[in-house]
């Protein structure tokens, strides 16, 4: 067995260092988007910061397992949601422990009942709801539903990406999304319609 030529070995090491640096730069360019999702998955800002740092530490250590050309944002979020579960944030509750949400038109119907059908034509009708009430409503949804709503509606991930990130079937993504959005509207209705 012959040792590799020193010059060849040096070139290999240099090429690998370049690949790693390129990976790191690509990952860091996504940090703002990763944080935006993380912030809504957990309760407190400090918790989101810690989670993002842990995610990047893990990602930088395991950059070789990332397949170039695939969706790095989804890859980072997969790491992040796994770490989040490892932290024991999630106590699995059975979905039917939550009362059944109202229908999809629930919030609109409540607003229309309070202000007339025409209010729904006005863009400002949603601004009756403060940003805080939106944030609180999101936080009030059960974690398994919230994760999907946050990934799809805040993070702009496709159903398929969300399924891969959370390691659940795509049909489960769709049904959790549906229930999560209904729960969100129900909560917004409770908070904003007298």
């Amino acid at each position, binding site marked *: 067995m012959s040792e590799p030529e020193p010059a060849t070995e040096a070139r290999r090491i240099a090429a690998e260092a370049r690949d790693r640096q390129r990976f*790191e730069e690509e990952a*860091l360019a996504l940090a703002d988007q990763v944080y935006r999702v993380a912030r*809504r998955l957990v309760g407190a800002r400090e918790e989101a910061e810690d989670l993002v740092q842990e995610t990047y530490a893990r990602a930088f250590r395991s950059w070789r397992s990332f397949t170039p050309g695939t969706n790095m944002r989804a890859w980072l979020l997969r790491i992040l949601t796994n770490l989040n579960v490892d932290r024991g944030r999630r106590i699995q509750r059975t979905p039917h422990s939550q009362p059944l949400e109202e229908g*999809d038109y629930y919030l609109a119907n409540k607003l229309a009942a309070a202000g007339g*059908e025409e209010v729904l034509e006005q863009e400002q009708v*949603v601004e009756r*709801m403060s940003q805080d009430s*939106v944030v609180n409503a999101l936080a009030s949804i059960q974690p398994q539903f919230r994760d999907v709503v946050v990934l799809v509606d805040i993070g702009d991930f496709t159903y398929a990406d969300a399924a891969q990130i959370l390691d659940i079937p795509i049909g489960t993504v769709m049904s959790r999304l549906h229930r999560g959005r209904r729960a969100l*509207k129900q909560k917004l209705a409770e908070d904003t319609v007298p």
Partner: protein
Amino acid sequence: MTRDPCDKCEEILQDYLDRTLTNEEWAEAESHLEGCDYCRRRYRFEETLRRYVKTSAAERMPPGLMDKLQELRGLDATA
């Protein structure tokens, strides 16, 4: 069993806005929305609400976090 077309329209709201309806279902929804003020207002409201939820929930990265992440670079350099 006959069903209220507005109930059907409510049922496919999510798929309509997520653009996951089949062409046939989409055409069916469009033709219902064309003639139904009630559902049309609700669909438009829902679109506005989604945009509002998204902007309301967006929070920028706190200052300093990027520096902390930059410091993590090279964790694998010696491996």
